[in-house]
């Protein structure tokens, strides 16, 4: 094996599973430690740096970090081990933060003369504004509605995300002096170009809900398109629904539609899924939350037609399906009619750019999607950038934020005459955590506590008002327990081969059998002859340089290391050390700053 190149920032970044999985690379273990120390404001600000909307995301994030969390791979005496409640700890930071006004980014008094237009006021555009305003850019946002926030405002129901929480975080950006034009749908890209902006960011989302063209579709006004229906709800145009409601589809939108229906008068609400549960798009926790509200999730039913009697929607006919083992092929068993008063279609969203003229050099592919560069977010016309759901179809808030960060870097480069492709990438700092003999500056003990369960408002109370937030947040005791579950994966085991005397102390002490000193060989063969087999090939196998005494290699399987520091503690020569990795993420402003420095 080649000795591992730990000078490549990716090596240690990857060890921090949550941070690696987070599209915006949020420094999770560091903010969890800050919470543990009661430094909620610091924890919030650290989050804000990378994910911009900690209070929103602490309630709504898709949390790709959690399935990635190392903790979930450890065996647990109480059955299955669960990830650290990373997402809800973000909410803890925002719930308990102090006054942050002094610490928010501010726009300089003198503008740099560059004007940027952002289409849509969703999280992607807002992130672009957040990143560029402090560097003197003038940002104009065109928004078709009269409120900012995009789908966070119009589609995520307030029982999951209270309006004020969203407003606070959106305002922290707009208050820098963003020129936001409400009730101003973009109707012509050409017209916007004619306004002479230096760059344009398209963050208009995927605004069109998919329809279902089945018999009866146009014969009733009780058949709704999910995202439009949720929008109507958010803007107060809709305030009731029938008692029997069928939701078609089982993704995120379906979950919000069914739970909203329960609050508007729906008593018998069913979510109708074509495929078995293992293939649902909604996350397990969303399903749990829906089922807690007595919503029935019906599998293996394919919609066939709307049943209209005397011009009134009375039900919907479904084919009952039987699937093969991998749920690829289905056969129809029979058909059933389920009675209903309303049907909500929640089967996906499409992009739509009717307002972008086709003779502007902006190329679209055969699905009508703009051709956008994966790194720079620039389309085929220089100076125009796409991000969020508008770039490659519906994703989620945290991806929209990351797209915003990347597009902002490109916009800064573009406006300062630097190639948009010139990007700094990541850097990493390693800081020893050693305080003395057997003394570390982090809490290195493994805590066997199990994941804290979020308390919910009781069922009666939550249906009394559409706006009652269901989740109550963690109590102080729950927070204290949950923070100790984090393994501090960013406190890295850093090895210096030249110092090792091959005493085996580290190998013997490691509780998870991560370490082995052995003869060199091909990686896949070595993986099987370590202290414990290293079968998780998505996790790095560290190989040292040859050891001075015998030429063998120190190997570490990163998979299940609990970062307890015992290897470093028992090493007589400090060949192992525990060092905190700090990922340096570059945001927009490098090009501007360089320019300022050369002028100074």
């Amino acid at each position, binding site marked *: 094996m080649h000795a591992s190149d730990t000078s490549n920032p990716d090596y240690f970044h990857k060890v921090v599973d949550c941070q690696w999985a987070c599209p915006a690379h949020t420094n999770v273990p560091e903010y969890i430690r800050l919470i543990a120390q009661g430094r909620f404001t610091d924890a919030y600000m650290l989050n804000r740096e990378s994910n911009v909307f900690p209070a929103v995301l602490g309630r709504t994030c898709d949390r790709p970090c959690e399935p990635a969390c190392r903790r979930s791979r450890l065996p647990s005496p109480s059955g299955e081990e669960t990830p650290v409640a990373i997402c809800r700890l973000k909410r803890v930071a925002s719930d308990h933060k102090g006054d942050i006004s002094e610490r928010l980014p501010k726009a300089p008094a003198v503008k740099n003369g560059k004007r940027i237009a952002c289409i849509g006021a969703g999280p992607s555009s807002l992130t672009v504004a957040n990143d560029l305003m402090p560097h003197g850019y003038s940002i104009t946002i065109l928004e078709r509605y009269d409120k900012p926030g995009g789908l966070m405002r119009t589609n995520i129901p307030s029982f999951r995300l209270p309006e004020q929480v969203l407003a606070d975080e959106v305002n922290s950006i707009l208050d820098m002096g963003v020129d936001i034009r409400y009730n101003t749908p973009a109707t012509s890209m050409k017209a916007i170009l004619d306004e002479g902006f230096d760059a344009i960011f398209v963050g208009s989302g995927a605004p069109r809900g998919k329809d279902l063209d089945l018999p009866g579709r146009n014969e009733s006004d009780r058949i709704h398109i999910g995202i439009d229906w949720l929008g109507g709800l958010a803007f107060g145009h809709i305030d009731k629904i029938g008692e029997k409601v069928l939701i078609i589809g089982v993704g995120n939108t379906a979950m919000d539609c069914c739970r909203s229906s329960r609050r508007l008068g729906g008593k018998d609400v069913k979510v109708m899924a074509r495929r078995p549960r293992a293939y649902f798009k909604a996350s397990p926790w969303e399903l749990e939350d829906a089922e807690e509200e007595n919503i029935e999730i019906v599998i293996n039913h394919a919609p066939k037609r709307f049943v209209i009697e005397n011009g009134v929607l009375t039900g919907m006919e479904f084919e009952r399906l039987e699937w093969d083992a991998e749920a690829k092929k289905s056969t129809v068993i029979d058909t059933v009619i389920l009675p209903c008063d309303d049907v909500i279609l929640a089967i996906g969203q499409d992009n739509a750019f009717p307002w972008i003229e086709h003779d502007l050099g902006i190329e679209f592919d055969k699905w009508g999607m703009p051709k956008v560069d994966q790194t720079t977010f620039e389309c085929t016309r220089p100076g125009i950038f796409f991000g969020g759901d508008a770039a490659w179809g519906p994703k989620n808030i945290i991806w929209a934020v990351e797209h915003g960060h990347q597009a902002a870097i490109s916009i800064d480069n573009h406006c300062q005459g630097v190639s948009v492709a010139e990007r700094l990438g990541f850097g990493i700092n390693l800081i020893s955590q050693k305080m003395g003999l057997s003394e570390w500056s982090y809490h290195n003990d493994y805590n066997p506590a199990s994941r804290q369960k979020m308390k919910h408002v009781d069922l009666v109370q939550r249906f009394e008002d559409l706006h009652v937030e269901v989740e109550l947040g963690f109590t102080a005791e729950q927070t204290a327990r949950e923070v100790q579950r984090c393994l501090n994966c960013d406190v890295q085991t850093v090895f210096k081969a030249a110092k090792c005397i091959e005493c085996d102390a580290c190998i013997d002490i490691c509780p998870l059998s991560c370490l082995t000193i052995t003869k060199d060989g091909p990686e896949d063969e070595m993986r099987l002859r370590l202290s414990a087999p290293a079968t998780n090939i998505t996790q790095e196998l560290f190989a040292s340089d040859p050891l001075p005494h015998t030429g063998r290699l120190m190997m570490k399987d990163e998979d299940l290391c609990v970062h307890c520091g015992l290897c470093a503690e028992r090493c*007589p020569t400090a060949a192992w050390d525990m060092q905190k990795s700090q990922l340096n993420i570059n945001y927009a402003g490098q090009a501007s700053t360089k320019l300022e420095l050369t002028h100074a």
Partner: protein
Amino acid sequence: MPSIAKPLVGHPSLAKNAIGLTIRDYEGTMSTLCAGCGHDSITAAIIKALWELSTPPHRLAKMSGIGCSSKTPTYFVSGAHGFNSAHGRMPAIATGASAANRELTYVGVSGDGDSLSIGIGHLCHAIRRNLNMLYVLENNGVYGLTKGQFSASTDVGSKSKKGEANVMSPIDPIQLALSIGATFVARSFSGDKEQLIPILKAAIAHRGFALVDVISPCVTFNDHEGSTKSYKYSRGATHAATESDFVPPATEIVGSIGPVGSTSIRMHDGSVLNFTRVPDNYDVTDRAAAVKYLREHPGQIVTGVLFADEGVPDMHEMAGSPQTALVNVPFDKLCPGSAALERLMGSFR
């Protein structure tokens, strides 16, 4: 002293042995020895050997004297019995314990100071009695616990940490044991578990006294340039005379898996010690050949199982003592009363 106890969470691949225990069940409390001490490595090897042998923790007795090495029984098999005796007295205490309860597995851990200075007499007599035990001599060439004085196993010319050379000739525990009739003699190095673990298993299976001398660098007082017991020197000077593997009784299927090596010795309990390599003209059952071989390799640390003889009766067999532990002998037999005593006394008159 480590900041925390070793977390109880373990690797999901942790296997269970024949009595349903994982290797973690054979651990003890956290070591308080210096980080990097060879003794800790030997502790890990003992843990592995006992786990692999499926020794029930409550059927194990851990015996020791005084020294860093003698502290180590605390660091393995917390669920076992143990006696941490006075300096050099472990063999005597072990003799008494074994006399009372021959059913336990006895593992003694001692040091070169404990064994070859103050306790050398006791060691010799335990060997003479062929006391049924594993005796691990953790040999670092110094009195570690008392801060690094030369011990009786320090080689001539080996330097102290301050640079002074030893002038007195060393006692080689292996040659000593061979000369007074030891029935199982082996040497290994703490840094070579592949060799050490099978040796420990064979030594536990051996009928009688098994001396395993393990070179075990003292990382604090004897790991410097000029020392002949440092990690670096030991690695360079070890010379494996024999190579062997231990086949426990349950896995040995005579006929299908024949002996691998040139020689194999059937142990008392039915297990087999297979030698995969022994030097030409070397017979592991020939005491004189072993001594000769050692003499022919001066300056080298000759390792491996160097001599084994399963044919010698152990202490209980020699003494004709009861087949069971004394606790299992009915009370009226153990203490037959004054009439029986009178009869006995009468027989001497």
